[in-house]
């Protein structure tokens, strides 16, 4: 690219959308006067083929090396025009858009003169930035086309099978001794009442037999390094003290083992031997010695005999795997309501959780399928199910677990079908949520079977100390009064909670968790399976409680998402990343590491005594580290300090004290401002907006520079706290930074309304328009004189503060 700047400006009429308000002729003339602009052309529709042809033609004929399209929002057509200039042989990153439709013609239709002036300045700002734009290369990283699935529940099983079916090698990592997850613990499944292990068992066997799947069970995830396409994973295979290849799963060792310990798989209601499998259908069918309980009598060694499968010298083994993508399907735990003294769980023998009930009624369970009470071993004649224990409770877990209504119905129906008129069943519930295919019909079936439904929140359970029978104090909303229900067995439908170790997993994988503790997806609707880390996807209950069909669908969905990466040879990465200047980084001299703390993706590391380093493929380009670097050693490509400062300076060249200079984050606030335009909300044409990818990029120097230049008002707008940020925590750091800045500016004598931080979502066009109106009003009330006077007073301090930026 030649050193001489040759800028081409293409101004779009957008039919009458722009030309209907703005004087296009004046705009074209104005654009011609801007520095380094050698060619200006207006089109009726620039995005249409003829319009794009004009751009290509202009580039060729006038040898243009910077392109500006003044038209709609870059959120609309930036990719279109980037493609267009790249087809004409230019680098796509020398292109800049001036948003004169959403930001001018659409929001100022009744003041065409002011709208035209504003459009001119928007183009001027774009030209200022374009003069500093650099060619950037799209980065490519190789892709290891193997996948790792974390957690072998029904979601993980489906992910593994689908990916393996597509031809990808899959490592299925399971913490427990067997895959299967919670589904393998259940008796029957709703709404069809088919036996859970009968339908899951064959899938588990499929997994173990699939040539593309390697099950690594009884293993812990130790660390994950790398980035999309190139993850390096360390896994520890714990010692089973049994050689998997030699174990035939016969169980002769179990038969001779003297030691029994509570079986967690049975919710500690039954026992297993110190050498055993958690359940008969375990996959892989390899026995495990529990060294916590083994007394090392070696009877098992004798029983195993010539097979020689038992080895007490086995050591844990650490292995390293290389994979391209990771699917997290680590599931959930069931809440055990020991802390709810009103229901007496753990105190009363005959109060159990629904998962314990599953193990009771299951034919292969510890009681052989007999529903009996712990207190006397007798079959109960009245059973009450209490819903929403822990769930939908503002003091515990505010969310709805979602599947409890259905499993309570299922268990009630099983009881009724098993014991007929010999058992009376009550369900005490707040709302009956039966909202998927076949679920409502299932609810009707329960009603027809004569199950008693009592709508109300159970308040208290009392136990008769002699008979151990229970009395439930509840309200009946249909009667509108408190009632008492007697029951010989009470089953609590308790909440699903994030599985143990979710926090550790979040740390290892750099994932975020929501307020409920489950993993956060990238977007609740449009990216429900993605995480903020490229190449890591979510499936099943680790993202939030869900039932079996939903988990299965997510498993397959996550497999498809992972395949979008795995099927590529190379993965493209947008080059809008942070770059460290090692000469400026002060971490070489003093311990700094601020950038490392700012990065939500673990993409930047500042080892002691060395300059910070960015792992390009992990950087998402928010720019938070850039803004907070105390020695300005980090640059965000395409959003450099120089580029943004040039936009600020050109925006405030004329009548700065009458303007609001705004920094809008791309994903929420800029989109919200766009929406104000597309909704045709009219607001005063006082605002000049600069787009940044994230509010975290807004350096305090930008604000200071704006005030130094005399800006009337400065606005920083971001995604809503705390979870809306597209870059996880950019808005949080922005808030910390601007809170401090507000204090400093206040002390220097700046009127507090002149520096504003707001949170505007992509849906809040009306809020944006209202805000501009309000700020303009405040600006008028303050008056030009007062603003100028304040600025004059501020000037010397600001000059001093900004002196290092000037070089």
């Amino acid at each position, binding site marked *: 690219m030649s050193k001489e700047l040759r800028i081409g400006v293409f101004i779009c009429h957008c039919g009458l959308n722009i030309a209907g308000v703005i004087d296009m002729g004046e705009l074209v003339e104005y654009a011609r006067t801007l520095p380094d602009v050698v060619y200006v052309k207006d089109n009726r529709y620039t995005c249409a083929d003829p319009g794009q042809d004009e751009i290509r033609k202009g580039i060729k004929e006038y040898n243009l090396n910077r392109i500006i399209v003044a038209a709609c929002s870059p959120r609309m057509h930036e990719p279109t025009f980037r493609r267009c200039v790249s087809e004409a042989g230019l680098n796509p990153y020398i292109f800049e858009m001036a948003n004169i439709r959403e930001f001018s013609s659409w929001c100022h239709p009744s003041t065409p003169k002011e709208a035209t002036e504003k459009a001119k300045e928007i183009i001027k700002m774009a030209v200022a930035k374009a003069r500093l734009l650099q060619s950037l290369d799209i980065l490519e990283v190789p892709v290891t086309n193997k996948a790792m699935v974390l957690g072998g529940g029904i979601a993980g099983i489906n992910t593994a099978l689908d990916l393996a079916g597509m031809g990808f090698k899959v490592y299925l990592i399971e913490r427990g001794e067997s895959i299967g997850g919670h589904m393998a613990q259940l008796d029957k499944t709703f709404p069809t009442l088919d036996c859970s292990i009968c339908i899951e068992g064959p899938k588990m066997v499929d997994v173990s037999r699939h040539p593309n799947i390697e099950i690594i069970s009884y293993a812990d995830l130790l660390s994950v390094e790398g980035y999309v396409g190139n993850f390096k994973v360390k896994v520890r295979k714990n010692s089973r003290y049994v050689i998997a290849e030699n174990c035939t799963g016969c169980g002769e060792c179990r038969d*001779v*083992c*003297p*030691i*029994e*310990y*509570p079986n967690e798989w049975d*919710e*500690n*209601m*039954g*026992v297993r031997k110190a050498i055993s499998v958690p359940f008969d259908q375990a996959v892989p069918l390899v026995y495990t010695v529990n060294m916590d*309980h083994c*007394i*090392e*009598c*070696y*009877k098992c*060694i*004798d029983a195993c005999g010539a097979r020689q499968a038992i080895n*007490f*010298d086995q050591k844990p083994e650490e292995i390293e795997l290389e994979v391209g993508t990771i699917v997290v399907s680590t599931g959930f735990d069931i809440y*055990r309501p*020991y802390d709810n003294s009103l229901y007496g*769980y*753990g105190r009363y*023998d*005959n*109060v*159990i*959780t629904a998962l*314990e009930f599953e193990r*009771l009624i299951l034919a292969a369970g*510890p*009681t052989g399928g007999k529903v009996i009470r*712990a207190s006397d071993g007798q079959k109960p004649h009245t059973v009450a199910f209490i819903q929403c224990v822990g769930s939908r409770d503002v003091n515990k877990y505010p969310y709805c677990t979602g599947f409890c209504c259905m499993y309570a119905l299922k268990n009630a129906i099983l009881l009724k079908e098993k014991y007929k008129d010999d058992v009376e069943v009550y369900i005490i519930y707040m709302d009956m949520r039966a909202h998927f295919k076949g679920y409502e019909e299932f609810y009707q079936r329960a009603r027809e079977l004569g199950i008693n439904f009592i709508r109300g929140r159970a308040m208290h359970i009392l136990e008769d100390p002699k008979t151990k029978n229970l009395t439930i104090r509840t309200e009946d909303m249909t009667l509108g009064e408190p009632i008492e229900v007697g029951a010989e067995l009470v089953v609590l439908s308790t909440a699903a909670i994030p599985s143990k170790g979710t926090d550790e997993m979040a740390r290892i994988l750099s994932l975020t968790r929501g307020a409920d503790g489950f993993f956060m997806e990238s977007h609740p609707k449009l990216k429900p399976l993605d995480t903020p880390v490229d190449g890591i996807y979510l499936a099943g209950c680790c993202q939030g409680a869900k039932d079996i069909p939903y988990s299965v669908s997510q498993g397959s969905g996550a497999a498809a998402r992972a395949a979008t990466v795995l099927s590529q040879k190379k993965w493209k990465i947008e080059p809008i990343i942070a770059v460290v200047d090692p000469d400026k980084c002060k971490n070489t001299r003093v311990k700094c590491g601020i950038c490392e703390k700012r990065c939500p993706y673990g993409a930047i590391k500042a080892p002691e005594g060395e300059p910070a380093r960015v792992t390009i493929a992990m950087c998402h380009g928010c720019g938070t580290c850039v803004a907070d670097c105390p020695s300005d050693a980090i640059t965000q490509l395409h959003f450099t300090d120089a580029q943004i400062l040039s936009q600020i300076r050109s925006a405030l060249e004329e009548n700065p004290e009458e303007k609001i200079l705004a920094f809008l984050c791309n994903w929420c606030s800029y989109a919200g401002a766009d929406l104000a335009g597309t909704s045709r909300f009219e607001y005063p044409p006082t605002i000049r907006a600069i787009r940044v990818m994230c509010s975290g990029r807004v350096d305090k120097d930008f604000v200071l520079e704006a005030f130094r230049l005399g800006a009337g008002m400065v606005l920083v707008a971001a995604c809503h706290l705390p979870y809306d940020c597209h870059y996880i925590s950019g808005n949080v750091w922005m808030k910390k930074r601007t809170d401090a800045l507000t204090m400093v500016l206040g002390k220097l004598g700046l009127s507090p309304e002149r520096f504003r931080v707001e949170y505007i979502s992509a849906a809040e066009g009306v809020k944006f328009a209202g805000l501009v109106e309000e700020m303009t009003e405040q600006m008028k009330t303050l008056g030009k004189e007062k603003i100028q006077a304040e600025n004059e007073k501020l000037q010397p301090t600001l000059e001093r503060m900004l002196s290092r930026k000037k070089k």
Partner: protein
Amino acid sequence: MPMKLLKTETENQLVVERILHARRYSLTLDRTLCTGCGICKEICPREAIEVKTVPKVEGDKARPPTIDVSEEKCHYCGICESICPFGALKVTVDGEHVIPVIKSESFPQLIREIEVDITKCDVDCVDCEEACPLNLITVTVQTPDGKEVKDVKSRPDKEKLKVNVEIKKDLCPCCRLCEVKCPEGAIRVRKIFHGIIRIDREKCPEDCQDCLDVCPIPGALYLSEEDGKVHVNELFCVYCGVCKVVCPVEEALELQRTHIRHTPVRSGAWNKALEKLTSTEEMAKELRTKGSAKKLESVKKRVAWSE
């Protein structure tokens, strides 16, 4: 029902329980039988047992240590029950008395060899009953047709009467007092534990007889009139070791068990227990006699020991 782990303590009894919905376990320690020797603690594979010494009250006799069992740790294997020379512990599963490690032959039973030749017994004699320090012997006299005779002295048909000596073997530590006290030589007892016990005259503090106070077998330890210190009579010692537990001076009392009489088993757990209670050499001897070369090797690796 979620699992419950309970501990109930009364003056004479300590009960730990593990109650599951479908199964319940208990371990009962009979404090009237327990001497606090702590042999059970030595070999508990879960380290669930603790020996607590009871602080001495000035002027009072020393009191035997008490045993505490952790309800969190105990897994009801029954090793403690199998080894207790005084039979103070009892495991039940679902209410039935079961010793899991004995059932699976993972642990041996102690051999209590006590033979009474009742043909030698004098119908008037109850010396053994009186001699037993643990009150485990009951001597009864019967008529030929099996009726119990209360007033032996007044009976004219003395030569026709039959003597019956009943011994609660399970609770007997085999001290041999009855054997020695029997005037007719009718009883023969072989000890369970064999060993050596030594008191270091130099180190044994004066005016202390704590070991003597807690020893369950009278005469096994005695106060010498010569030097006012405690001496050992190994004839009666059962090598339970409670003396060592309470001895306030390190190395003043040395106890070394050399042999334990037990039913034959092939069990690593027993080898380990044997090593702890006796010595590595004793265990090696046991392994060699059984020809368990592979296990010997495995154990060697685990305990980092070589011959």
